[in-house]
């Protein structure tokens, strides 16, 4: 095991996959000479050169499209969006092209591509730079959506995403790049897509969290344990699509209570989908209505106090757990 930041774990995954498969290349804004806007690709251009690590013009639709075409023609591109906010410019290629290519070609053309970068809010970067877009992409059949919350998951899942034959939306979180965790040192360490992880075992209430809300949920769980002697289980689906609903349902069968914590807006969110699926599979096991903590239904404000009020927080999660546990 090595203690790594999420940033370095991602970097290792990229490096190992570049070495492992000559068709893997990384393309995006500032990924090469600048070492990445958030330094995820640090050192890779120096080590592997212009062919494998490619700086692009600011032309998201263009290089996403180039990636789709290259993937159809046999390469395995990893396309970095400086942030997922800018993927919206490229969403035509992701949704209209990559997601549907295999299906509408009757299985002829696979699109083995990864679109990755930070998703969600950062530190007061305001309305156009703070969006959590997982529900948007998860809505379209043909796309897989991955959101790691630890260094080990980041590495293992990114390697699987690169090896996957489908277009994968791989969402990181800027606030989390510096968080550290133990990562297995094996070169071939991968984590399969579509498998949830129980981040903390508990018996009284389940929190389903992803990305930035996982560390929040863990902190909330710890506080609740100490203050109220309530034991909280924290589940991280890790892959949003396909969703490992079985792990969530088994947990609910044990705890009978569910809180969902997510960074995206609430309307038509992944949390809404989980709520439906839980109702479908475990309605009779619920002892309380499901509670959900999301970002408020407003674009992200800049002001420090308003941004904090807009986002999920440990306190908000604690309040929700108390509500479903009737304490």
């Amino acid at each position: 095991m090595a203690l790594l930041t999420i940033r370095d774990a991602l970097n290792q995954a990229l490096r190992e996959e570049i070495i492992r498969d000559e068709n893997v290349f990384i393309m995006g804004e500032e990924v090469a000479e600048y070492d990445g806007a958030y330094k995820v690709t640090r050192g890779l251009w120096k080590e592997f050169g212009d062919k494998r690590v490619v700086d692009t013009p600011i032309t998201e639709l263009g290089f996403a499209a180039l990636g789709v075409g290259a993937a159809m023609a046999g390469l395995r591109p990893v396309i970095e969006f400086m942030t997922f906010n800018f993927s919206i410019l490229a969403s035509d290629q992701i949704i209209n092209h990559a997601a549907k290519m295999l299906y509408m070609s009757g299985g002829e053309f696979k699109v083995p591509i990864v679109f990755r970068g930070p998703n969600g809010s950062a530190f007061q970067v305001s309305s156009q730079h703070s969006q959590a877009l997982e529900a948007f992409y998860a809505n379209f059949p043909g796309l897989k959506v991955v959101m790691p919350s630890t260094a080990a998951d980041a590495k293992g899942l990114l390697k699987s995403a690169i090896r996957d034959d489908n277009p994968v939306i791989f969402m990181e979180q800027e606030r989390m790049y510096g968080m550290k965790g133990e990562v297995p040192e094996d070169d071939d360490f991968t984590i399969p897509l579509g498998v949830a992880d129980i981040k903390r075992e508990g018996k009284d209430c389940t929190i389903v969290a992803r990305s930035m809300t996982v560390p929040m949920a863990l902190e909330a769980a710890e506080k609740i344990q100490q203050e109220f002697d309530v034991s909280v289980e924290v589940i991280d689906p890790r892959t949003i699509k396909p969703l490992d609903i079985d792990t969530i349902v088994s947990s609910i069968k044990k705890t009978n209570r569910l809180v969902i914590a997510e960074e995206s807006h609430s309307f038509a969110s992944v949390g809404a989908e989980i709520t439906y699926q839980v109702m479908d599979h475990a309605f009779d096991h619920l002892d309380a209505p499901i509670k959900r903590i999301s970002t408020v239904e407003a674009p992200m404000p800049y002001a420090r106090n308003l941004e904090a009020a807009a986002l999920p927080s440990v306190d908000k999660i604690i309040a929700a757990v108390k509500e479903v546990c009737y304490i």
Partner: protein
Amino acid sequence: MARTAATASSKKSPSKPSAKKPAKAESNGNGRMAVVELMNAEYQKRRKSQIEAIKKTDKKLLREMLYQMVLGRVFEEKAAEVYRMGKIGGFCHLYIGQEAIAIGSMMALNPDDMVITSYRDHVQAMVKGIAPEAVMAELYGKEGGCVKGKGGSMHMFSKEHEFFGGHGIVGGQIGVGTGMAYAAKYKESGQVTLCFFGEAAVNQGIFHESLNMAQLWKLPIIYICENNQYGMGTSQERAMSTRNIAKKAESYEMANEFVDGMDVMAVRDAALRAIKRAREESLPTLLEVRSYRYMGHSMSDPGNYRTREEIAKYQERDPIVLFQDSLKTAKVFTDKDFEAIRQEAIEATKKAIEFAEESPYPSESELLSDVYA
């Protein structure tokens, strides 16, 4: 004539992908060093006639132009200082070095003309009439900010002053600006639109889509490409197949000019020609204004992609210094006047800081207001 500066710089052959280890990060400083020499040579040629022109220009206007440039500089130097103290959060993109572009072009407008720009928007906001207090308070994320603390550095707006904002998505405002000009033509309001964007935004599809529509439908707009030669850490020649941006307009049969962005009077002249074309003939223009940003891309950019010599070389042609030099040679103002103007700008900045410090944080009820009209 100034076109030579643009063409002479495109010497570097396009780099083709190679499996080999890349050479050390090539700053291609030579290309940019050559351009600055050429721009200076052109400047020296026109200087004499420009000084004659300055003598004939309204003194009050000249004073205001210089004041706005100095205010922009002093204000942003202060913003950088308080950013480092943690008073300002998020991204903060400074305009230092580029002041001549906003002042030269915007001060040729009528008050009801419209302006839109990118996230590098503090100086444009102030030149358009938003008080320095309201801009600084916005940087602080306070209630007294021009958009109540909701937008921050990248998103200054003012309906009253026809300032249509600072925009964070590279290239987005090029399309929005085109729509503003469309509305002006539709309403026959006589307003002209100035639309600012960086040279890296030219690589977005929306630049090309917008120019085509603007020429096709004859819209009264001036597209001002602020070519500071870098988009974050990527120099223009590493991201664009041609160095000559002004010429791109020709594929849409649009009028265009290459302008020395360190020479505020040259920017003003070019803007006046373009504004006249927009106002009288309802025709668009693309101006490529060559300049240089002294600071990092944003406050968090270490700037390892260029050399100190290159920055120093461009600073030799500092727009404020050049302008003061001409004003002095033309005997319009003296060093004493310059000092008075500087003091005024320092005073205005001090007041802006005091206002921002004292302004309260926005009330939490603001969180859910303005989501829908």
